[in-house]
């Protein structure tokens, strides 16, 4: 039939997800970070929305973990670390003089690459944070532990053995316990630093399903080397290289039709 050339609007399954109207949670404004003379983050401008999973990906040494650790000021623990620029959470500069870093880390929970439960019981691992923050009554504490374990999709597997050592759990269960421990203090943001790199595919699937559930309530930020994992679970993806954000876009765009040649070369394995 007779035709006219035009570009058609792609069918986008995420179209109804209004990124424009999404609530901004974290904003990096011209942020730079140094470890001594090593300039690890350069001119980072980034807006991260609430109730989404945002992935930071890039080759080793690109600065993705440093960027993640800047959000809860974990870099403060590194000697000779200094920064310029701002990071705001809910429009408040987290490096401002009035910010209580312990309060900040309560709002911004973190889960690391290798599961790191305390050598205590399952119950006490989850109860640790709330106890520090003043919840001491047994019943109230038990409720927090149950809620956190349920949110971390672990309750059904451990509810009859809360007194057992956390170290008796499998790797995947230990990682979900660490997520439950982070959730117990009711954070707003969850930082996940390669949370599945030490896990088998089944445990990885469970953690990824958990991430998708968590984004309904929390802002989730994920650092991953695993491109397929970023593609599977994140809504937005930032590709980093040599301390800079090269491209930040909807995950589908990044993986199907990236704007930058550097991104294309990285995700198609044509790098280096």
């Amino acid at each position: 039939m007779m035709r006219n050339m035009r570009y058609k609007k792609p069918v986008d399954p995420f179209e109804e997800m209004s990124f424009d109207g999404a609530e901004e949670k974290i904003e990096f404004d011209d942020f730079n970070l140094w470890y001594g003379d090593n300039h690890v983050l350069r001119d980072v401008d980034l807006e991260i929305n609430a109730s989404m999973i945002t992935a930071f990906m890039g080759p080793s040494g690109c600065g993705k973990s440093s960027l993640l650790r800047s959000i809860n000021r974990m870099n403060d623990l590194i000697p000779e670390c200094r920064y310029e620029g701002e990071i705001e959470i809910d429009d408040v500069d987290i490096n401002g003089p009035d910010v209580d870093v312990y309060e900040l880390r309560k709002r911004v929970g973190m889960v690391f690459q290798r599961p790191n439960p305390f050598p205590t019981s399952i119950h006490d691992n989850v109860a640790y944070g709330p106890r520090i923050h003043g919840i001491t009554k047994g019943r109230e504490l038990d409720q927090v532990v149950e809620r956190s374990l349920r949110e971390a999709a672990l309750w059904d597997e451990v509810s009859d053995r809360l007194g057992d050592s956390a170290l008796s759990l499998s790797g995947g269960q230990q990682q979900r316990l660490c997520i439950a421990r982070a959730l117990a203090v009711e954070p707003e943001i969850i930082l996940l630093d390669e949370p599945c790199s030490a896990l088998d595919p089944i445990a990885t699937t469970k953690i990824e399903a958990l991430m998708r559930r968590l984004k309904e309530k929390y802002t989730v930020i994920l650092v991953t080397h695993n491109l397929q994992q970023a593609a599977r679970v994140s809504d937005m993806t930032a590709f980093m290289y040599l301390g800079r954000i090269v491209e930040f876009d909807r995950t589908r765009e990044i993986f199907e039709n990236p704007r930058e040649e550097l991104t294309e070369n990285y995700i198609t394995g044509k790098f280096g």
Partner: protein
Amino acid sequence: MSRPLDIGLSQIKTLLLKMGKLSRDAIALAIEGFHGREDVHVQTRAWSNTLLILSEEVEYVATEMIALHQPMAGDLRTLKAYIKIAYDMERYGRYALDISDILLRLGGWGEFEEGCLTVEEMGQRVLEIVDISLRLIETMDESLVWELSKAEAGIDELYLQNLSALVECEGVNHKTIIANLLTVRYLERIADHASYIAESITYAATGKRLELR
């Protein structure tokens, strides 16, 4: 250093070019057979079947590449385009077979008054557009997309003209009408698949979803 994915993509491209040559030959033979009332359906059937087998081979290699190498970005788009193009090629072959089957089904037909229909010109133009689509696959030269689009519009125009002529003709043997009607329809569909190939190549090369209609 070549990536395993490059080897697979190159393997598929070679298959597509082979399919392209085969389908082009099939269409040319079917058109020739139609105008000369020559029975060529055994040959076109054999080629059409080969195209089907090659199309399945493309799908097999592509699936293997998805399973083993998880292609992304340009690789993913190219692979998706190649799978669609293999189908378009298979359709080229199928329409060639359909044209050659007309003689088998009708046994023969008469002639229209000279100048009344432009089926011969349409056949020539269809071969040209098929050639453009094959050059597109080989070169991924986007400028050919515009050339193809123009050629396709011309074929559509001829199709509509022939359709009107067939509707309005009087005193013509019904087999003659059916034979020509089916042929112009099949030729028009071949041109449509050439457009789909252009859309696929554009998507693979640029990520843009083009619609040539």
